[in-house]
């Protein structure tokens, strides 16, 4: 279902922050046109890993290859979209002014601001100043900025936090439309019920990957009924047999 070269290839990645290891020897691949989920408790290294993918994190060792180039290469800056967990948009500009600015910076088509505003369902709020949006709307404005220019890889940190179930459903439908077009998504979440929707999951804990596989593979391998139980089983297994 995907082309041969993976969209993301991470090998032996190590990151220290404040003298402490945050990522310890992380390796994985994300096939093109798929949704890769990063699941784990807060503080497990999800955000740091995502920062490595977009090339804004200082790393201690290992390699991160994105769309065939080292992460953070100048050539990737139009091909990778990134939305941070804390919304990084201008609170004192309207939704549309924000999108127009980021579109101009990316050299995206003039029609892109309106397109992404519709895609995240903020059409009725396009002229509203971002600082007056609700938390969920603010998150969607942040996501919209990442969609500008139609990037090949989207790195989305907790994109569905604070959204009602209907909106969450709509965003996942959007993510599916994107992967159908060949876009690769790396999406982090700390809620298990979202993990089921991904093609492939990395279960993370304390800077390490506990398991890597499709949701059904993970439940099968651990002989559990759901992912929550699978995660618990994996943590116990790790505790019993320290590396």
């Amino acid at each position: 279902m995907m082309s041969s070269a993976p969209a993301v290839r991470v090998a032996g990645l190590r990151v220290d922050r404040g003298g402490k290891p945050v990522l310890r020897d992380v390796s994985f691949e994300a096939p093109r046109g798929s949704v890769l989920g990063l699941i784990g408790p807060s503080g497990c290294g999800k955000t740091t890993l995502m920062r490595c993918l977009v090339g804004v994190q200082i790393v201690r060792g290992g390699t991160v290859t994105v769309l065939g180039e080292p992460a953070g290469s100048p050539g990737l800056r139009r091909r990778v979209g990134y939305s941070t967990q804390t919304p990084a948009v201008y609170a004192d500009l309207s939704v549309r002014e924000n999108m127009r600015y980021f579109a101009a910076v990316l050299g995206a088509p003039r029609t892109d601001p309106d397109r992404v505003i519709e895609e995240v369902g903020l059409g009725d709020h396009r002229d509203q100043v971002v600082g007056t949006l609700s938390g969920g709307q603010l998150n969607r404005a942040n996501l919209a900025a990442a969609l500008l220019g139609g990037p090949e890889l989207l790195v989305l940190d907790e994109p569905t936090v604070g959204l009602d179930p209907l909106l969450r459903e709509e965003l996942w439908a959007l993510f599916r439309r994107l992967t159908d077009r060949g876009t690769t998504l790396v999406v982090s979440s700390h809620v298990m019920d979202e993990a089921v929707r991904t093609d492939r999951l990395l279960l993370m804990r304390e800077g390490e990957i506990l398991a890597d596989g499709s949701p059904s593979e993970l439940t099968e391998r651990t002989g559990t009924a759901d992912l929550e139980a699978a995660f618990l089983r994996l943590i116990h297994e790790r505790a019993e047999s320290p590396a």
Partner: protein
Amino acid sequence: MSTVLSPTITVATTRRILSQLRHDRRTLGLLVGVPSLLMILLRYVFDEPPVFDRIGPMLLGLFPFVIMFVVASVGTLRERTGGTLERLMTTPTGKLDFLLGYALAFGLLSLVQVGVVLVISLTWLGLDLNGSVGSLVLVAVLDALLGMALGLFASAFARTEFQAVQFMPAFVLPQVLLCGLLIPRDSMATWLRVISDVLPLSYAVDAMQRVSREASFSGALLKDVLVIAGFTLGALALGAATLRRRTA
């Protein structure tokens, strides 16, 4: 960096900063209103035209410097802490695009600021200027850009807006004491004089004194202008060094 500078991105950044200010009417009002009010106060506090003629132009150079320092340091600190700078660093935006975007926006803003204060000073307050209005505007806008460049640089050392605001007295007030506004620099102790020689505001105030006294654009004024421009470029270069694509 793929490209060092992209005119499209620079201009888009300038427009974005000006749009932000357009939404923030109060800040805009303060930017233009406060220096005007201070000039009016100054005129009537002294109530002696010769004194006002001497001090007025110096303050016309000082106000944009101080105000742009504060606005630029808080503004860029918000970009650093709010994540928008990081987002821009994942896009084709170059460091120079970011810095020049700010310089252009604040340069235009200081033009409006200086223009309004100048019109009030020359008409209502009866400021008597020996030099040309053009050279006064040139020096005042350069001072504003110097303040902006230093503010951008200073913001790298602040973690919070509280700290950023405190940098104003820390960076600016010693310069105000030593720049020759209160006491002529010639009558200072030698060691103070030496310090004031390496502080940019000394040249800003000297330039303004020349504009108010000398009818022609002298070589000494040109030297001041070049020194201020040099400090501005130096501060921008230091500021560029504090903009990192990768952080810990």
